[in-house]
């Protein structure tokens, strides 16, 4: 049995170039892993066996001297990314048979870069969820300990990379939906700056908060992917950036960098989380960075603001699902979707708009200003991703508000539009991974990669050996 699917993208690209193996080898290994583990883990909604054909073509191209940044690398896509000709469901019964007529811009870019799509991954339906349990097609399990949740909403994507089913996987992060499952699965998860990566063709959750990102095994791999997905898109009016090489600062030391600590906000967090956070802060100091306590005075209001703004935009974005032009009609919505649609409809309704939506947008502005002030003092911020380690499947499903509160360390970044990089920090009992996140100012992804890369080097990456 091949171990090629355990490689990183960087290693795979080097090996392909040298001719040590082929793209068919890589793709076969991934598909075999999927076949073995997916029945229990349920990371994939759709598996593409045609990927072998794509791999064959990639190998031929490579032989003919074609050079593309991701030529022949198998990747997975969260089933919220529109893929022409490949079923896309958002894991909701509403779209259970829907085959899109166009590709998302990010999908187009990844295909142009030569990547091979092995499948569409499971998620919380409509990206509504933090655990990976809210899919209409069954929950995804944490591959490190299948009794536990993988985190959500980009559950399948995180798991696919963690368990070597794909070399990278795309995701979306509206309130933590990349960073949380990344931290629960021992993988690197990037939530880019809002507006850095095109949202065109990604089924919209909350338009002012959705950030399009991805999962990889290493920080360097993450930068390689961002080079493909980032930049101005003529179909998304909220994008503007010119191309940049996000790998350029990898390997630079972090001496003298100032890193903000949110120690004072750790009181409610699990002991393991607290300890790991302080350990990482120490590591950063050993690497030469300076840890500075910072204040984010309005962060305690972030969840409240988020759970007004996000459902409001959700209620509007889900209005197009009426069963007329595609999909099933609205009675097929799951409970969580209905809940958010109603909450959002209420907060936008006549007489309530000012008190709820408008007020929440003002709080959002204050939170952004908190970060602006913080980044005058520090270059980046280090913070836990979740207040708790992964919880058991079924533990929080009956209390939506309790589930919402698990977003407490992640939503602030979405409200402020800033980037966040979640990297593995260690394991606790029951073989459960814990991650930590680096937050930076708008468009500071290169810096986050630089710091993340330095941290990564201080620890051994635990391989998934199943």
């Amino acid at each position, binding site marked *: 049995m091949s171990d090629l699917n355990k490689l990183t993208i960087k290693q795979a690209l080097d090996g392909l170039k040298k001719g040590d193996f082929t793209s068919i080898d890589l793709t076969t290994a991934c598909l075999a892993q999927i076949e073995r583990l997916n029945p229990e883990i349920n990371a994939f909604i759709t598996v593409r066996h045609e990927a072998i054909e794509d791999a064959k073509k990639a190998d031929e191209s490579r032989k003919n001297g074609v050079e593309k940044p991701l030529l022949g690398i198998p990747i997975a896509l969260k089933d919220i990314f529109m893929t022409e000709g490949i079923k896309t469901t958002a894991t909701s019964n509403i779209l259970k048979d829907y085959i899109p007529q166009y590709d998302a811009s990010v999908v187009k870019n990844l295909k142009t870069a030569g990547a091979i799509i092995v499948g569409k991954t499971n998620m919380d339906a409509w990206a509504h969820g933090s655990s990976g349990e809210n899919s209409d097609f069954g929950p995804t399990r944490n591959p490190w300990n299948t009794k536990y949740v993988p985190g959500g909403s980009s559950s399948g994507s995180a798991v696919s990379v963690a368990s070597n089913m794909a070399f990278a996987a795309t995701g979306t992060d509206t309130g933590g939906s990349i960073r949380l499952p990344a931290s629960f699965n021992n993988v690197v998860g990037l939530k880019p700056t809002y507006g850095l990566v095109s949202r065109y063709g990604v089924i919209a959750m909350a338009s002012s908060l959705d950030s399009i990102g991805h999962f990889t095994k290493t920080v360097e791999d993450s930068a390689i992917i961002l080079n493909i997905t980032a930049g101005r898109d003529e179909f998304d009016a*909220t994008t*503007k950036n010119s191309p940049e090489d996000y790998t350029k600062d990898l390997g630079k030391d972090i001496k003298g960098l100032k890193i903000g600590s949110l120690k004072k906000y750790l009181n409610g967090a699990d002991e393991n989380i607290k300890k790991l956070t302080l350990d990482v802060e120490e590591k950063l100091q050993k690497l030469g960075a300076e840890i500075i306590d910072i204040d984010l005075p309005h962060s305690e209001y972030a969840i409240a603001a988020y*759970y007004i703004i996000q459902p409001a935009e959700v209620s509007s974005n889900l209005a197009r699902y009426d069963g007329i032009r595609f999909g099933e009609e609205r009675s097929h919505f799951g409970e969580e979707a*209905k809940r958010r649609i*109603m909450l959002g409809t209420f907060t936008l309704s006549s007489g309530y708009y000012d008190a*709820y939506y408008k007020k929440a947008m003002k*709080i959002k502005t*204050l939170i952004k200003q908190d970060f602006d002030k913080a980044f005058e003092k520090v270059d980046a911020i280090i913070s836990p991703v979740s207040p708790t380690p992964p919880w058991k499947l079924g533990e929080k499903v009956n209390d939506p508000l309790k589930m919402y509160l698990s977003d407490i360390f992640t939503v602030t970044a979405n409200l402020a539009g800033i980037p966040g990089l979640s990297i593995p920090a260690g394991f606790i009992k029951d073989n459960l991974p814990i991650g930590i996140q680096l937050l930076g100012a708008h468009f500071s992804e290169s810096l986050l990669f630089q710091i993340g890369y330095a941290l990564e080097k201080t620890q051994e990456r635990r391989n998934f050996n199943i």
Partner: protein
Amino acid sequence: MKFDVKHIAKLANLTISSDEEKKFETQLEGILTYVEKLNEIDTENGQAINQITGLENVTRDDTTAPSLTQEAALSGTKNTHNGFFKVKGILDNE
């Protein structure tokens, strides 16, 4: 605060069963009570930044690009008729 589930469901074009009604009412009232927290902050003179990117005037030239074929446009559903999307009769003017 009383959350009128029936009214909101209608506005949201959702059908809610009477079992769901009670459950949603409780849950949504709970969430709304939590978000009342925001009233602790005075935002009277605050501004709301709608576009966090700071972008302005993002427009495109008046040029055309090919549309979807009729077949592709209709491919998402079986409810079509002679190139049109078909829905149950909507009584409008007589």
